[in-house]
């Protein structure tokens, strides 16, 4: 056990049991999975992505590239989770990734011997030949050999939710800078949201011995938290990572609501995505430590120096028993002091500086650590963990030093990502040896403390207090300057160590990218950082190169002889840390992705045994199979014949309905429809088509004039939202002076078509003898209001037909009343398929014909374009090209051999012409088996179609092996004179 006897922010009285690779361990509340495993002496956490090299813990935060595990089991199994941010809970199950058969003995480690096969860009080169091997051999092999964790193969049982927050000041990060900022802003009375990814507030204060206002940092953080909780307008979100900055002060954050529990409580989401809209933002995201590239820098036991201090102070864990510290300045020596304070033996300190300041040298002497001034690391040794560091001293000699922990203080990377999400590029600062936030920040944002390259504690506190009160003031909450929390330790010279030559020096641990790969990219011309990144995959793993990314830039800068400023860095994009797709989807999942709309008559249809089909957002009855019917066509044909010979009823509630009121309603309709509507008498209906301004048909429907100033127009089901928006544009933008108001009433009315020779009897029975619905009183294209009901004598089927509408709440009752009224006539419910067959038999255009590429003329409706008024689409519909008779135009088609089945999509060619593109003259748009005619019929668009009635053409459908001769006929198969609908 390597748990220290005292200290740490852990609850030693409580024991949590957990397992790693099936073996049981215990830890304490306050532990992460990484700290608990380290406390149990576990150093080997996983195998690397390409070479299956053993890997341990590098960091103590979300930047972790190595210690990635699969968490939980079964449907909740989640891959690539950094053990360093996984809060320990009782019963936690974790397993290592990318090892076979076991973590300690990994056969795939042979990949390391094959590493010449896996250089940068290997998938572009090594596995190119023979081409046929790619899918069968190479890809499965690579997928087996390389990779990370496995995702669960079952649906996620947990829920995720989205929530919104609005605030004056958003403070990102609750380290010293963020706490000071939140306190200053909170005291002003501003609405403040403080987010931190960690479980508790404090950031580096939780890991360092420094005091603030005379208290230990962690204690001060607690007292600030109490003060913030006393501010009514301050909201603290822990376990919450702000992962994206978007336009106009919008930020996205992920709150891990239940990730620290075995599973969420009933009704509790697993995670919550917050959309935060902030007037001002203080970014205090801190800095993460930088890896150093030296041979064998990936071996378990190599750890960032600050992480070592964090494990010692926060988790009371000694991550090693004999330590070598690689230092470039104060940061490394702070680590030496921390190790000494916690009684961990330091074997050696390698200081890159030739001259080591006397206080540091004295510390080394006092604790008996060998000091290598001006030394570097030549290699590391160890099989599954570090046991020896080979030091090259200033004179060039190599000295082996036994050690199981190598603490690396390579400098810091300020966490500027959120400051760059709107496109700003980080700026290299030579003095601080780091990329700093761009000159142009997201509007309203300021950057405080280490994220801005100001690393000293006093500096961070001052920065936070100043920027916090400044942000509140800018948001309208000026306040008296609040006292700046006091601390010792001010700005210190930033130090940086980059590269120490040698092989197997990793610059990206998670993707196994080495300095050799960067050199290869340079040799092959991929020198711009964005090219280098994509060629080597450097910085493209889930850690996004937080600890190692800048090393690749440094290596490329060295190779090209350019400065870091000229080399630059890659663009930062959201998310800052990985976000599960489930969290982004939130509640919009499965059926909830798009809600289903049911008509008021849905339950009745279900009772009648309807099969339903999705039609746009709606669920519509497709047909009503009866006992003994085995085939859908059987049911549909029966329904069609019932309408043609008796009477049927169909739910048409899904058609779009727009109600218009006002003296200029007719004028607006004249403008949006091609034909004149304003002349329509009260109590009449007219068919109309709408064009887009480019002259093509947008939609068709009917306009009914219920009263002098009240109209209701219908749209197709699919185009209802679009037609409403189109009419609103026509009114608000193009004709704002028209006195008319309109609104969608699609959901307000249930509507049923009653069609067939006996339809009038049914309507008469429905309305009762007080209402006269005789042909004389209520002729074809009449409309009227009968009590609560609206009645329209319109027909899509070509039969004597009515549509009757009731307020939606009465829709269920109405369909039952209609069926009751029609019982004597044997009324038959019919569905969407029969509706479609009926309209194809009549040649009415629908979805296949109203496809956005047809003109009114193409549909045989050219005479509906008024010559006497302006309307949308009028000018461009008259373009010569759109008047060309050779345009595909609506025709009817019947198979020459009546047994032939026709299919929509077949191309129309001249009879006997070979199937080549120059012979293509159109296509079949809709087909139906007509039970009335006992053969298949079709509608199609055929070049010069109206002039070719009687001609036989070829319907060629190579996709479905269709090739038939069809005769061109008028696009109306039943009752061309319309006698039935006027009957």
């Amino acid at each position: 056990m390597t748990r220290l006897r005292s200290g740490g922010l852990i609850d030693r009285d409580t024991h949590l049991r957990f397992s790693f690779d099936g073996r049981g361990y215990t830890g304490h509340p306050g532990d992460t999975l990484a700290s608990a495993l380290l406390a149990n002496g576990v150093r080997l956490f996983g195998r690397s992505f390409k070479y299956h090299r053993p890997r341990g813990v590098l960091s103590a935060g979300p930047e972790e590239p190595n210690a990635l595990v699969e968490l939980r089991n079964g449907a909740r199994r989640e891959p690539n989770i950094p053990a360093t941010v996984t809060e320990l809970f009782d019963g936690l199950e974790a397993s290592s990734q990318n090892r076979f058969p076991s973590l300690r003995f990994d056969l795939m480690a042979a990949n390391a011997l094959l590493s010449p096969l896996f250089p940068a860009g290997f998938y572009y080169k090594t596995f190119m030949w023979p081409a046929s091997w790619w899918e069968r051999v190479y890809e499965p092999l690579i997928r087996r050999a390389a990779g990370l964790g496995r995702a669960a193969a079952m649906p996620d049982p947990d829920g995720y939710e989205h929530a919104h927050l609005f605030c004056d000041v958003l403070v990102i990060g609750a380290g010293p800078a963020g706490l000071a900022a939140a306190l200053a802003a909170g005291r002003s009375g501003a609405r403040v949201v403080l987010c931190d990814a960690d479980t508790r507030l404090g950031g580096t204060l939780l890991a360092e011995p420094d005091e603030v206002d005379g208290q230990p940092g962690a204690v001060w953080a607690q007292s600030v938290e109490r003060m913030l909780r006393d501010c009514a307008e301050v909201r603290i979100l822990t376990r919450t990572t702000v992962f994206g900055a978007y336009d106009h002060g919008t930020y996205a954050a992920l709150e891990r609501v239940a990730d620290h529990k075995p599973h969420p409580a009933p009704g509790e989401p697993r995670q919550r995505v917050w959309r935060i809209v902030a007037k001002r933002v203080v970014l205090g995201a801190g800095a993460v430590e930088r890896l150093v590239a030296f041979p064998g820098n990936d071996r378990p036991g190599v750890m960032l120096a600050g992480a070592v201090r964090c494990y010692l102070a926060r988790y009371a864990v000694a991550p090693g028993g004999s330590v070598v510290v690689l230092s470039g300045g104060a940061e490394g020596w702070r680590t030496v002091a921390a190790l000494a304070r916690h009684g961990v033996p330091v074997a050696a300190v390698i200081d890159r500086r030739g001259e080591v300041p006397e206080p540091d040298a004295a510390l080394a002497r006092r604790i008996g650590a060998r000091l290598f001034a001006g030394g570097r690391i030549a290699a590391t040794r160890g099989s599954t963990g570090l046991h020896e560091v080979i030091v090259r001293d200033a004179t060039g000699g190599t000295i082996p030093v036994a050690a199981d922990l190598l603490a690396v203080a390579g400098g810091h990377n300020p966490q500027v990502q959120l400051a760059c999400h709107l496109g700003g590029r980080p700026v290299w600062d030579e003095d601080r040896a780091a990329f700093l936030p761009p000159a142009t920040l997201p509007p309203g944002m300021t950057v405080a403390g280490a994220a801005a390259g100001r690393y000293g504690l006093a500096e961070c506190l001052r920065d936070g207090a100043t920027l916090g009160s400044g942000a509140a003031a800018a948001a309208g909450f000026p306040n008296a300057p609040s006292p700046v929390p006091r601390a010792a330790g001010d700005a210190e010279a930033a130090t940086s160590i980059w590269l120490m030559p040698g092989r197997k020096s990793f610059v990206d641990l998670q993707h196994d990218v080495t300095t050799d790969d960067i050199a290869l990219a340079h040799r092959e011309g991929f020198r711009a950082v964005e090219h280098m990144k994509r060629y080597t995959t450097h910085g493209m793993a889930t850690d996004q190169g937080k600890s190692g990314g800048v090393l690749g830039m440094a290596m490329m800068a060295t190779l090209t002889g350019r400065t870091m400023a000229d080399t630059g860095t890659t663009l930062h994009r959201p998310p800052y840390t990985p976000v599960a797709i489930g969290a982004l989807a939130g509640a919009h999942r499965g059926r909830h992705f798009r809600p289903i709309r049911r008509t008021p008559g849905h339950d009745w249809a279900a009772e009648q045994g309807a099969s339903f089909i999705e039609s746009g957002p709606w669920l519509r009855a497709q047909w009503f199979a009866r006992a003994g019917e085995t085939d859908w066509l059987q049911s549909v044909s029966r329904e069609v014949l019932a309408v043609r010979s008796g009477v049927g009823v169909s739910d048409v509630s899904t058609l779009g309905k727009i109600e218009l009121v006002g003296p200029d309603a007719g004028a607006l309709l004249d403008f949006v429809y091609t034909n004149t509507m304003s002349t329509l008498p009260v109590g009449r209906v007219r068919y109309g088509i709408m064009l887009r301004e480019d002259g093509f048909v947008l939609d068709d429907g009917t306009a009914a004039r219920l009263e002098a100033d009240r109209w209701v127009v219908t749209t197709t089901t699919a185009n209802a939202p679009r037609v409403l928006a189109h009419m609103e544009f026509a009114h608000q933008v193009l004709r704002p002076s028209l006195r008319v108001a309109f609104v969608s009433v699609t959901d307000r009315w249930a509507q049923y078509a009653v069609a067939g020779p006996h339809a009038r009897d049914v309507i008469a029975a429905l309305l009762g003898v007080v209402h006269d619905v005789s042909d004389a009183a209520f002729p074809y294209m009449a409309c009227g209001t009968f009590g609560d009901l609206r009645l329209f004598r319109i027909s899509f089927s070509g039969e004597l037909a009515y549509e009757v509408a009731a307020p939606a709440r009465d829709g269920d009752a109405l369909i039952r009343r209609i069926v009751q009224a029609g019982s004597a006539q044997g009324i038959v419910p019919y569905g969407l398929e029969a509706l479609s067959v009926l309209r194809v038999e009549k040649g009415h255009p629908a979805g296949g014909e109203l496809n956005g590429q047809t003109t009114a003329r193409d549909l045989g409706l050219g005479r509906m374009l008024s010559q006497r008024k302006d309307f949308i689409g009028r000018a461009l519909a008259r373009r010569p090209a759109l008047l060309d008779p050779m345009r595909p135009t609506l025709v009817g088609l019947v198979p020459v051999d009546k047994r032939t089945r026709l299919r929509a999509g077949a191309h129309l060619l001249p009879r006997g012409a070979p199937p080549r593109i120059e012979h293509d003259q159109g296509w079949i748009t809709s087909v139906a088996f007509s039970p009335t005619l006992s053969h298949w019929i079709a509608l199609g668009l055929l070049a010069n179609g109206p002039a070719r009635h009687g001609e036989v053409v070829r319907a060629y459908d190579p996709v479905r092996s269709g090739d038939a001769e069809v005769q061109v006929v008028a696009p109306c198969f039943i009752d061309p004179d319309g006698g039935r609908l006027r009957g």
Partner: protein
Amino acid sequence: MRIPCPHCGERASEEFSYLGAADPVRPAADASAAEWHDYVYLRDNPAGVMREFWHHVHGCRRWLVVARDVRTHAISAAVDAGA
């Protein structure tokens, strides 16, 4: 993005649908074919402020003219298109 609707206040852009440039003016009915072609098909592509139509479909259902810098998304004005 946040769009300052003159009727509803500042709202998230998901509440709106986008149409395109608001500057072209619909020609008179008897205008030439060339003028109609310009109106329907030709659009400027400025690197800077663009006046464009946004429809507050999930709000007041008014068409707005929004002046937006397409390089930065900075919105300098949003007025009702019929105003």
